[in-house]
């Protein structure tokens, strides 16, 4: 039976993990490669490196980080952040990434999804979408796509569900849907959003934004119909281990990959 995936996400800037990670007493808790290896050993099913680097010099560092990680960690690795061209994607895939995740660049140039899928295969292209609820209270739920999330998110005018459908038509092989309303709140994923996305497209959906407990991850899968759950701080700060989450899910009938003791 296909298992549901648990995916830790590491934010990397200039080759260092930001928002430090304290779950492991490693000599270098800021080294993304050491952390990737630690998460692999802890039973992560996949890893995401999200590059929040601004300059192109720093982006070259990311290529080295991916190369070093790929030589040591033999589970699927997705790299996202700042990839604007097919050539950017190629550099990361050649360095050892299995998939690339695109967000703002795809909104600005949807052709990038199709070009990437044609060159590398749909299985390499993850469309990442930041969505915020925009319906008035009492209205049916509706979500809009934003880019440059952070202090000054920019509205795109795109409806999230329509954009995701289009992205899959263009060749995106997976969707990572991040609820801006839930992100950082630790109150659970936006289950309505997850359900709407899962119902809209035939490709795997990765839930992102809002997980604070294993129960939230269970809800994302059982009620939101997500194929995978992505989380950062819940794991990084050692609140829960991957094994804790897998035990919780397994006890409730969700198939998970067994973590070797």
């Amino acid at each position, binding site marked *: 039976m296909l298992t549901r995936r648990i995916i830790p996400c590491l934010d990397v800037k200039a080759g260092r993990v930001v928002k430090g990670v304290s779950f492991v007493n490693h000599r270098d808790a800021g080294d993304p490669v050491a952390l990737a290896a630690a998460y692999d050993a802890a039973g992560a099913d996949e890893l995401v490196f999200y590059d929040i680097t601004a300059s192109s010099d720093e982006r070259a560092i990311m290529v080295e980080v991916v190369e070093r990680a790929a*030589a040591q960690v033999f589970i699927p690795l997705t790299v996202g952040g700042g990839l604007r061209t097919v050539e950017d994607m190629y550099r990361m895939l050649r360095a050892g990434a299995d998939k690339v995740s695109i967000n703002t660049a795809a909104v600005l140039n949807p052709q990038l999804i199709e070009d990437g899928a044609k060159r590398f295969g749909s299985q390499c292209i993850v469309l990442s979408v930041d969505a915020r609820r925009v319906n008035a209270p009492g209205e049916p739920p509706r979500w809009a796509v934003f880019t440059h999330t952070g202090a000054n998110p920019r509205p795109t005018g795109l409806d999230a569900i329509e954009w995701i459908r289009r992205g899959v038509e263009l060749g995106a092989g997976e969707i990572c849907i991040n609820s801006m309303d839930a992100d950082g709140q630790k109150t659970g994923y936006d289950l309505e959003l997850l359900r709407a996305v899962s119902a809209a497209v*035939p*490709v*795997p959906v990765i839930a992102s934004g809002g997980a604070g407990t294993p129960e939230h991850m269970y809800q994302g899968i059982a009620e939101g119909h997500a194929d995978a759950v992505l989380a950062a701080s819940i794991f990084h700060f050692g609140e829960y281990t991957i094994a804790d989450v897998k035990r919780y899910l397994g006890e409730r009938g969700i198939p998970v990959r067994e973590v*070797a003791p």
Partner: protein
Amino acid sequence: MSIAVINYGAGNLPNVVRALRHVDADLTVTDDPAVVLSATAVVLPGVGATADTMRSLEALGLAAVLPQVVAMGRPFLGICVGMQVLLRASEEFGPHPCLGIVGGTVRRLPDSAGKIPQIGWNQVRYAPPFASHPLFAGIPDGSDFYFVHSYYCDVDDPTIVAGRTEYGLVFPSVIIRDHLAAVQFHPEKSGRCGLQLLRNFATLAGSRSRVSASPGAVSREER
């Protein structure tokens, strides 16, 4: 004693090479039919479509050579599409012939399976006659491996099916015939179980440079 890892442009070639190096396999990356013919063992990686892969193998003069190295009894490992092209034919993007080393047809996973492609970790159950096969040494029955595929190998001869996986239907995820082995999953992305399978293959092929741990033992660094 070197394994020829065939370079025909497959997207997973670099990661297959990294994983084989990690388990101390001696290898040569090559697209030269003469090198493949003289290698002690062969690994055929693969990602993508069978038709594209066949075109690439034919253009490089490898399509004629691969059946020869298998017939000569050289240890051979096909991975994902590198497994699928071993069959007689594929239905992907219109029926077309493949290498014909193994009887059977490459067919699409049933829509009833749910999402296609299958992406993620799924269990491999050993066929009883293969449960103690050295390719599986140190890997418990029912272990999870990482799959990314829309098509599967519908193999004619059930006696060569060494491992099976369920996704909408039960399909052959490992075939073994004499020194020929092929896997539908990606051992290079299947964590310690995948590395162990590659280590076992390299050991069978006599192509490990530094045999530091006994086959079957999984050291901590490799997890």
